[in-house]
């Protein structure tokens, strides 16, 4: 039931989605806050791209910027987001609406409150279909039943209300809704956060299968690096509005260059179970209203030197499709060796405590 979107002049050679120097700011009572600062990445066809980072690092803001869902006080003062060559930041609401769901769909935290609680699930899916396609309600309902089967739900239950579903079922229903118009790219913002590990695993598997079966690209946004590790081909590691490391998943996981990535890897149990000893990064990310002068991660980084205090490091290519933002790439072997050691981070913790918890409130 795929129809060509006649309103747009897509560039077939352009990447599926390309963010270039993307900056997002919020105007608040504390002044202009930069939530996403000069972030660039590319998502190709048939790819699952991951954005990972702690809460507040700006990863969800990236998703909102792409879909034009920024709150009214949010804006994109510079940079661009191009979908198949179409500049999204310059579109009128009406034009953007034509792209939304048809080409660019969202998977939100369906397990929580992302489905309207007072409408039947079928109603919500039919609504999405009919907003873009001129089809009868019966046809749209048939499609809904089909979608329910695709995501492994019983079509008999499509007329239920969201609260009659379990968290995992709601997430599946949401995915069914995202697939309704056979989009090119789905942005999944914390798709498994409220789910238990077993259900999480099923959902992620399903997402991967859908990519293979339907050729849909996915951007997965998560704070959980193990989710990203399981599903993505490529990823970006974000910290405090900046992209710290970016590139091919295998390269980043096997040969991380950035101390923050090293720290993140320590903080999560690997699914292979090699390492059961979790080491957390001491301190917390800086307040974006009061950013440090130099590298954003400096205050929590055990390898920081005076050089790091000048300016945030630029993203530097360290391999084929692999870039990292750090001044200390030269000692990367030493960093990798020491990062797995609890002592390295503990040393920093005592410093953080001694200076009164810099960067912390």
């Amino acid at each position, binding site marked *: 039931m795929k129809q060509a979107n006649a309103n747009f002049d897509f560039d077939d050679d352009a990447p599926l989605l390309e963010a270039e120097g993307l900056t997002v700011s919020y105007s608040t009572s504390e002044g202009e806050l930069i939530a996403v600062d000069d972030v660039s990445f590319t998502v190709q066809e048939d790819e699952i791209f991951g954005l990972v980072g702690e809460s507040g690092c700006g990863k969800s803001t990236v998703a909102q910027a792409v*879909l034009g869902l920024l709150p009214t006080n949010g804006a994109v003062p510079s940079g661009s987001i191009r979908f198949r060559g179409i500049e999204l930041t310059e579109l009128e609401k009406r034009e953007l609406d034509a792209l*939304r769901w048809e080409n660019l769909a*969202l998977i939100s935290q369906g397990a929580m*409150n992302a489905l309207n609680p*007072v409408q039947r699930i079928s109603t919500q899916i039919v609504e999405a279909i009919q*907003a873009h396609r001129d089809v009868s309600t019966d046809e749209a309902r048939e499609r809904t039943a089909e979608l329910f089967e695709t995501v492994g739900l019983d079509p008999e239950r499509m007329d239920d209300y969201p609260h009659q579903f379990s968290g995992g079922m709601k997430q599946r229903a949401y995915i069914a809704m995202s697939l309704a118009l056979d989009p090119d790219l789905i942005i999944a913002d914390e798709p498994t956060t409220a789910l238990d590990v077993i259900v999480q695993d099923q959902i992620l598997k399903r997402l991967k299968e859908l990519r293979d079966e339907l050729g849909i690209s996915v951007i997965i946004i998560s704070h959980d690096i193990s989710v990203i590790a399981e599903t993505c081909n490529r990823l970006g590691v974000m910290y405090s509005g900046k992209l710290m490391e970016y590139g091919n998943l295998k390269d980043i996981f096997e040969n991380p260059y950035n101390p923050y990535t090293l720290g993140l890897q320590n903080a999560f149990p690997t699914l292979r179970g090699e390492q059961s000893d979790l080491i957390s990064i001491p301190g917390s990310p800086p307040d974006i209203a009061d950013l440090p002068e130099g590298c954003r991660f400096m205050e929590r980084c055990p390898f920081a030197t005076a050089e790091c205090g000048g300016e945030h490091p630029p993203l530097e290519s360290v391999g084929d499709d692999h870039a990292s933002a750090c001044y200390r790439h030269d000692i990367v072997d030493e960093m990798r060796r020491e990062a797995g050691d609890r002592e390295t981070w503990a040393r920093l913790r005592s410093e953080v405590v001694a200076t009164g918890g810099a960067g912390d409130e």
Partner: protein
Amino acid sequence: MVNKRYLARRFLLMVISIFTVATILFFLFRMVPGGPMSAIMSPRMTEAARQRVIENFGLNEPLWKQYLLYMWQLLHLNLGQSFYYGQTVKTLILDRFYNTMALMLTAFLISYTVGIYLGAQLGWIRGTSKERAGMLVVLLVRSTPVFWTGMIVLYVFAFKLNLFPLGGMRGVGAQYSGPVSKFLSVDFLYHLVLPVFTLCTYYTGLPLLLMRNNLLEVLSEDYIDTARAKGLTNRRILFRHAARNAVLPVVTAFAIAIGFAVGGQVLIETVFSWPGLGREMVKASLRSDYPVAQGAFLLLSTIVISMNFFADLAYTYLDPRVRLGGT
């Protein structure tokens, strides 16, 4: 949708509440200084005449017997006779009740429709100068005493411009064949305009502010982002998704407001000389016309209690998450 056993239980609870209120009212009015007879007995009555009156009203019986008698009569919807009018209380308060409802229901329906609509619009344009100006007007109108607005409205539209009658419910010499023709007559509607307008200026504020605040909360919910991401029009997002959820608490407010509306707006009824229940209750209390006051209070409580019941029922239809009484 609604569980039958729950419904029966909820209904029984309502009946018990009304029964309790009737009991309290009965004893309350027997505790009033001077007793129920003080109003109709004069000191010049002979002792024999006094006894006759007391016997006529059954006041020589012990209190429990009086209570049982009262309850028995209540079951037959007999509320006694007015000391002042000589009419039965039922006829009297039903008449006043219809007058009040014609006024208050009209005012509430308009207020809540307009309030919900404007509240949703104001919430949607949050942060704009238009919204700030709107809020200022709403708060200003809402804080104005309603009797004062009434007097100003009367002065301008009735006294100065002579567009509407100064008060009352019907023109001189107007005759009606029945309640339907009375409440649907042009003459009646003509008299209704000013008091309803005045009430609306006051009552629109609550649903409007309630709706706006609820909407602001709802707009930050994830399912609104979902609706936006689906590429729906603003109109559809506002009315099908946001307002639909934000309206739920307003429904409760409406049901409770209707309940209290029965008591009428004494001030408005006074300013516009409207022969409603509120004014009658005040007059009955002043005249020590206890059967009327007691009957009016009972009617008032009954309506408040039943409106709460209906608000609960309405909720189950508006919010599928509410399944009264579980499975």
